[in-house]
């Protein structure tokens, strides 16, 4: 029977959300083409995770090995190359994540498989796929197709595919022996480094004033910092501000930073890259201030203000000062 294989992603003992997203999409595609879904789980002592995955696919392919304790693209590539060669799935689905970006391109080359990365939409008609990707940082979407025949590999953007609750599979866990040997590796996992703890925990604030690339210079940061202080909130930011070292990493909201759920999130000069939106979409109310009326942030905000932040924020600050006095 035709198969779709999804790669389970886990870290430090926990399955990551992308796994459920891939499995939900995999199942939907499989049902459409009369295929089965299998989920590949690589790790050390991960039977508990296998049990959690069991209701979500026809089969859990479990490969356990001490050398698979932490993700390493080299060991993963060896295991997955053998697994995919043997199971012959029509489609392999992997997350476009820190893990997927490190493994999928190399694995696809070794398996001589056409690869489409960072897809936000996948539709299938028979064995033909219509894919959606984003270009120019999300300013436009692109309809993309495969030029060569399958089997194929697709990486899926985090948060782009909804997790739909469906009738659980009876499921089965199939243990597959690890092909890894004592052979030395050219790449070795050493350790995890946790993020440094800063003076302020932005995940605890009721009001977050968040600043992005639009602030232009480090010298302008106090403008928004003062607004945050006036509101009794905390100051956070999007990635470019951290990249430029204007604020420390522990202030960053987004996929590679923190996920925040304040009551009110004020996004100032933040265009709204999907990595940022992933970190703040749980906010109660979002107010966005941006000079570009087409900025994607307005698509997720509750209230939008099209304005030059350097003109608007000082007025807002004065207003808040005045209103608080009265």
């Amino acid at each position, binding site marked *: 029977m035709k198969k779709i294989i999804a790669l389970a992603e886990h870290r430090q003992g926990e399955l990551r959300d992308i796994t459920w997203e891939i499995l939900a999409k995999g199942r939907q595609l499989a049902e459409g083409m009369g295929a089965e879904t299998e989920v590949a789980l690589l790790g050390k002592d991960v039977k508990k995770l296998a049990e959690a995955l069991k209701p979500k696919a026809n089969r859990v392919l479990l490969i356990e090995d001490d050398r698979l304790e932490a993700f390493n693209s080299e060991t993963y590539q060896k295991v997955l190359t053998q697994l995919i060669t043997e199971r012959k799935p029509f489609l392999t689905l992997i997350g476009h994540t820190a893990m997927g970006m490190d493994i999928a391109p190399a694995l696809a080359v070794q398996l001589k498989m056409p690869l489409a990365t960072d897809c936000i939409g996948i539709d299938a008609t028979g064995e033909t796929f219509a894919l959606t990707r984003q270009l120019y940082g*999300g300013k436009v979407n692109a309809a993309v197709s495969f030029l060569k025949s399958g089997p194929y590999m697709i990486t899926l953007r985090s948060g782009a595919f909804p997790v739909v609750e469906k009738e659980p599979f009876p499921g089965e866990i199939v243990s597959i022996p690890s092909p890894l040997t004592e052979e030395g590796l050219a790449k070795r996992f050493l350790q995890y480094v946790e993020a440094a703890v800063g003076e302020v925990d932005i995940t605890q604030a009721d009001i977050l004033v968040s600043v992005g690339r639009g602030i232009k210079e480090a010298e302008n940061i106090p403008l928004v910092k003062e607004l945050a202080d006036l509101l009794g909130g905390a100051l956070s930011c999007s990635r470019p501000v951290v990249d430029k070292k204007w604020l420390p990493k522990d202030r960053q909201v987004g996929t590679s930073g923190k996920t925040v759920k304040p009551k009110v999130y004020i996004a100032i000069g933040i265009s709204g890259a999907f990595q940022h939106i992933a970190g703040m979409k749980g906010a109660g109310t979002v107010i966005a201030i941006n000079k570009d009326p*087409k900025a994607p942030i307005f*698509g997720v905000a509750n209230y939008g203000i099209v304005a030059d932040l350097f003109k608007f924020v000082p007025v807002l600050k004065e207003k808040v000062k005045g209103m608080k006095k009265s």
Partner: protein
Amino acid sequence: MNIIVCIKRVPETTDADVFIDKTGKDIDKSGLVFDLNEWDSYAIEEAILLKEKSGGTVTVISMGGEDSNESLRKCLAMGADDAIRLTDPAFNGSDGYATAKILAEAIRKIPYDLILTGTQAEDDGYGQVGVTVAELLGIPHASLVTRLEVQDKKLKAHRELEGGLEEVVEIDLPALLTIQTGINEPRYVSIMGIRKVAKKEIKTLGTSDLNLKAEEVGLSGSYIRLEKIFLPPVGEGAEMLEGKPEEISSKVFDILKDKGGLA
């Protein structure tokens, strides 16, 4: 240490109004400003920092038309030693995989210890080219690198994971790393600096120089094809607050009181 850096010149679209062109397959780039891909500016800076520390050479490679010389010269002005441009009408339509094949063939001709690329490009955002090049060359790789430390015949790299976490990996050289933004502070290049390298030769290589057949590159050597582009569907969208800044500020204050518990 000999380092190769793969770079790309891209249009700046972050703050630009973007329109779809007549072909329906790309944006209208006529009014846009082009620059070195942001991720690549960190990659070239990292290569130059390594060279300044321990010597060696930095060679910068880009696939593209004559316009790409501008970005290659920027890298030379930053401190790269040599620049190579890969150009051929047959390269048009190359996807991430075909682009990686072309880069890998060019790199095979040059001695190297380390290859750096940006993690992704601002325009097509494949995030696959660097790792594909590594696999084609048969060397180890690490993506999303935010810190690196070379130690003799190997290096230690920090990879950015989700949620503020990093992992540290050790890799034998030669290796390829894809560089994440924020790893360093790319140096500023003055107009004078660019002028100084204006006459420096930029070598060009095409399909026939690269041991590639025409069918291995461009659209025929690609795995995916772009059919058309369209504007992303807008979600429910925000309620836009309009009026004088003072009036909008009052509304914002009311929202903050109502929803944020502002006292």
